[in-house]
């Protein structure tokens, strides 16, 4: 989607937004926003008063006309802001729709028979159907690969042009409708009905169709509504007070005062801020299921990050062999290489390469020959925590220290004490010790250990420092033993780590953090991450992950980049800050408006009140008009800020608060004094009053 981003003020978007601003004038839409609804009613009242003035011929038509016009502008500007925020999402939704072609699906009657299929439109597919997709086919709907492996072009949803591999079983089995098979074939079980697919949800989300007010937005709306009622009381009672003082105020003047006082700035921009926050996430290629989770992201206290792929580069590299006494280093290298020959993992390959570079050991072919018979690969499993090969009567194993020790003892061997020292030394240095053992003729022995080194990604320490500055703790999750974990944690600069973690440990950690009142964010991709993703307050599923993981999380990262969590938290915080800052600004603005309007209202009765006219505005009419114009224009002026968010730098709450208070609080008091005076001068200059 990177290619689909639009600049903030794209000409086309603005045209559409301007049109939508009028469409949004419908009372049914406006009533959702009580503050702007009051402005709408005020505009209608003023317009009626204008008609009355024209018909009866009394009063100042020019003044009432200008007030009415600017009040309507106020409403339109607020609608425009919302339309602008939605506009960017809409443009993206349109491109998404285009990518969702009306595909034909090859529906299989029997998933085991690949040849017997029927061509049906993708919209006819239902959950549980099986389809086959071959090279060149568009995948007709969301599903799970049940058979086959293929490269898939997912650029339609991720914007990433490099194809990804999808295969049955494991953590890369989920496919998304609208993506395209580039090579080979897949049998897919459909897991979503048409209209409920990922791409459909995504369109709905970016369009804002399913947008609901978030809890904080609701609370803020209550505050703004209550303030509106307070100001209505202040303005409505002003008429009797005026009568007591021997004068009377006209409807346009009272409405002007009301509109200037009620928090129209934040009221007009509130929904735009929310939509823009979601949009910023989308620009980061993250799809949030609800606005609620974006808000929660701002509140996160604890980040759980998987070590591998997030903090360190995915692949560890073998850098050293440490034999136990009685074994030569060449022997160890040879056995290590042999055991790793069929091992396709990056670690396995790095062992083969290291042995070749150090000791000129050629990589041998897997299979029979070279003095050993048929080689049988024993893959790594979470249960055994080791891998290796069997040939003839020899078994080679490499794996975690304790699991190898167990294996050696089970196979009648003893574990030399020296290996513990080696393992501990490697661990303390932050490496992963991979103990190698062999069993010949039923007698097992430990040969030594391979030093696998984790490579910490560049720049991670700085990012964790930033998070710490915001009061967020990072916890590294790793399957490594505690010593290794501690060394890497120290190198990467995380606050804490969970070593030798099993999926249930992760769950427990989340529960423990939450019971201590902390909000937890995590990323995950595997099916066994799903419960933890669901439990976490912010669960970001990788797009490459399984369907279960994607459904359990409340966000999906299309780039499948676990470090994105940090950006997500920052976007959440920025969203909340923008809301707070503009609320403060809006309320602070009222001080200047009072000083403009109150003396203007009563100048005729109490000329002494002219002393409150701090801005030395030209006349009562120019003061009122200037205030109303300022009030309308400030909405337009703040649209870029609402859409982009306030400037955000990680720092402790006290410092952020002081900075925002100075800019939006004190600025909010001063700016309207200058703005209203300036508009007043211009109004006088163009003889508008």
């Amino acid at each position, binding site marked *: 989607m990177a290619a689909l981003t639009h600049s903030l003020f794209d000409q086309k978007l603005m045209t559409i937004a301007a049109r939508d601003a009028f469409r949004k004038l419908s009372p049914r839409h406006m009533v959702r926003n009580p503050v702007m609804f009051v402005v709408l009613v005020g505009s209608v009242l003023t317009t009626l008063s204008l008609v009355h003035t024209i018909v009866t011929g009394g009063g100042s038509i020019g003044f009432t006309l200008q007030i009415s016009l600017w009040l309507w502008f106020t409403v339109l500007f607020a609608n425009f802001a919302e339309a602008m925020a939605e506009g960017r999402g809409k443009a993206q939704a349109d491109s998404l729709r285009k990518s969702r072609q009306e595909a034909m699906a090859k529906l299989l009657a029997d998933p085991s028979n690949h040849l017997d299929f029927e061509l049906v439109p993708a919209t006819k597919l239902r959950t549980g159907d099986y389809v086959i997709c071959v090279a060149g086919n568009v995948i007709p709907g969301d599903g799970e690969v049940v058979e086959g492996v293929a490269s898939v072009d997912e650029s339609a949803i991720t914007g990433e042009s490099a194809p990804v591999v999808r295969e049955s079983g494991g953590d890369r089995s989920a496919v998304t409708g609208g993506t395209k098979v580039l090579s080979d074939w897949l049998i897919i079980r459909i897991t979503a009905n048409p209209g409920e697919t990922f791409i459909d949800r995504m369109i709905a989300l970016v369009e804002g169709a399913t947008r609901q007010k978030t809890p904080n937005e609701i609370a803020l709306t209550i505050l703004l509504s209550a303030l509106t009622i307070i100001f209505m009381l202040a303005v409505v009672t002003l008429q009797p007070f005026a009568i007591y003082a021997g004068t009377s105020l006209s409807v346009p003047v009272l409405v002007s005062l009301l509109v200037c006082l009620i928090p129209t700035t934040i009221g007009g921009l509130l929904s735009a801020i929310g939509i823009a926050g979601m949009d910023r996430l989308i620009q980061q290629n993250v799809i949030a299921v609800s606005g609620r989770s974006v808000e929660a992201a701002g509140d996160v206290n604890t980040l759980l990050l998987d070590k591998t792929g997030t903090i360190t580069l995915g692949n560890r590299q073998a850098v050293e062999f440490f034999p136990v006494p009685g074994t030569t280093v060449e022997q160890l290298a040879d056995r290590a290489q042999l055991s790793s020959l069929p091992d396709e993992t990056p670690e396995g390959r790095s062992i083969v390469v290291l042995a070749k570079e150090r000791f000129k050991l050629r990589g041998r072919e897997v299979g029979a020959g070279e003095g050993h018979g048929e080689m049988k690969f024993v893959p790594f499993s979470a249960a055994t925590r080791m891998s290796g090969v069997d040939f003839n009567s020899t078994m080679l194993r490499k794996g975690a220290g304790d699991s190898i020790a167990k294996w050696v003892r089970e196979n009648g061997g003893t574990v030399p004490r020296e290996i513990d020292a080696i393992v501990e030394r490697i661990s303390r240095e932050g490496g992963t010790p991979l103990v190698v053992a062999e069993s010949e003729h039923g007698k097992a022995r430990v040969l030594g250990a391979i030093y696998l080194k984790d490579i910490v990604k560049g720049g991670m320490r700085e990012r964790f420092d930033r998070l710490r500055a915001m*009061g*967020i703790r990072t916890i590294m999750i790793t399957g490594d033993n505690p010593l290794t974990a501690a060394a890497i944690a120290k190198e990467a600069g995380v606050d804490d780590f969970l070593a030798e973690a099993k999926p249930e440990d992760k769950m427990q950690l989340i529960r423990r953090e939450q019971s201590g009142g902390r909000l937890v964010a995590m990323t995950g991709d595997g099916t066994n991450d799903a419960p933890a993703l669901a439990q976490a307050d912010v669960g970001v599923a990788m797009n490459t992950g399984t369907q279960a993981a994607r459904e359990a999380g409340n966000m999906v990262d299309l780039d499948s980049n676990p470090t994105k969590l940090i950006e997500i938290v920052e976007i959440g915080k920025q969203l909340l*800050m923008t809301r*707070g800052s503009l609320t403060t600004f809006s309320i602070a603005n009222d001080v200047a408006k*009072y000083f403009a309007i109150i*003396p203007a209202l009563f100048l005729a009765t109490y000329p*002494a009140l002219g002393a409150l006219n701090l801005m030395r505005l030209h006349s009562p009419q120019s003061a009122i008009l200037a205030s109303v114009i300022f009030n309308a224009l400030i909405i337009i002026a703040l649209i870029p800020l609402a859409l982009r968010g306030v400037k955000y730098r990680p720092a402790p*709450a006290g410092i952020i608060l002081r900075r925002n*208070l100075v800019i939006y609080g004190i600025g909010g008091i001063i700016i309207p004094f200058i703005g209203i005076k300036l508009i007043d001068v211009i109004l006088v200059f163009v003889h508008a009053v």
Partner: protein
Amino acid sequence: MTANGWVQILFFCVVLFAITKPMGIYMLKVFDGSYRWLGFLERPIYRICGIDEKEDQHWTSYAVGMLLFSAVTMLVTYVALRLQGTLPLNPQHFPGVVDRQSFETAASFATNTNWQSYSGESTMSYLSQMSQLAMHNFASAAVGIAIAIAVIRGISRRSAGRIGNFWVDTIRGTLYILIPFAFVLALLMVQQGAIQNFSPYLTVPTLEGAKQTIAMGPVASQEAIKQLGTNGGGFFNANSAHPFENPTPWSNFLQMIAIFVIPAGLTYTLGRMVKHQRHGWAVWAAMFILFFAGTTTAYWAEARGNPIHAAEGLDVKASSLQSGGNMEGKEVRFGIANSALFAVITTDASCGAVNAMHDSFTAIGGMVPLVNIQLGEVVFGGVGAGMYGMLLMVILTVFIAGLMVGRTPEYLGKKIQSREIRMVMLAVLASPLVILGFTAIASVLPAGLKGLNNSGPHGFSEILYAYTSAFGNNGSAFAGLTGGSYFYNTTLGIATLIGRFAVIVPALALAGFLSERKVVAESVGTFPVATPLFVGLLISVILIVGALTFFPALALGPIVEHFLTSARVLF
């Protein structure tokens, strides 16, 4: 302004600071039940009244208990006042109080307002004073403290809406705090020369040979609780300006400290109960700054005097021979500094006792008490009422500014969401509705205008002050307004009731809601509630909310009057 005046003001500030902590700790221990030195009295009361002191009430039961208690005591007082003529301890043979005044007085005393549209010495029998008015002085104050403690419990606990036991809290507040302190204070007042007797009124020949009636009565005991419970209803019409109520500068000092002792102590109790003592002090600091600013303004305005006098060439400077400044309506034994200080204290708190006539203050000097009440009397405030009122403002502050740190707002670990903010705003909304609404009605209806003794902006200020004082449960009068009419008795009575209960019930609901919230952990990313920045923010929110609501009305009252006085126009 004189050095002597400032020394007295600063002495008051120092004593105020010094009593905060011991008073706070004492109240903490009383309400958590660990100080029970009067247990031999407390336990039988529970037994007789059938109160289960272990019962932890849900906020709804707590609120219902409070409403029932207030309603019943108010009704009893209404009946007692109506039947005054047939009841004993009435040496002057005062008849029953008229219906409108009985209603207003019952409402006013039950709500801790003590607005008096009558002169005590010519209306109320000793029985009415002692059994009814004094009873409310204790009860309404105890209820206020109980509510404050309950609200703090809601903030500090996680207890599914349970916030304590209304009956236990009220009884403990009366038994351990109000009665002993009032007892000691009454003795001190007698020592200073306040009277305490049941004698019939004296008739004495004056120097000119005329006959003067001098009112008597059990004054000192009434006086003590009137100050301590921030009630303010004077035994005599002249209130604390009367030499029998407030004879000396020392008694004046004691009266002022008595107003603030419980409210100030509660800030320390707050800190202890929420386990964040610095937050308690931050609240104290915000209150103190507002108090000091008000005092400075009022003292400056009164010491400066009437600009017209200076313009006429009169000597208004303070000297050893004269107080200088604006002495109209002030007692010479207190002078300008102590009159300004008293006026600020009595309106910062919801006391309403006066030792000078606010009506005679200069425009700005008189605006300070008015603004104090309009800000919600959260500057130390009424006993308990100041604390829960301030907590509403704290939560509002946290909500408005809390977002600016990039987290959804939370107060001491409790999330502030729509339910909580709805309650805060309900309480905040009541004040413009009642004050501005009734003022608007009174300022155009003939029934309202008839009560005015002054015209123009000053007359407007009188109406505004009356409803502000009634809603704020203050009870001080700007005077100048004839409040004894069906219109004023009824509307002011209603204003006191709304001002009390439309704030208490949302505050209790808020406490209940907060007690249901789980506690969010604190980190450096949490909105700070104990820094100078927070204090400044809290003050700004209090001022801005108050100013935005009442600025137009103030502009048409004291503000315009101030400018007109400068232009030598009087009303």
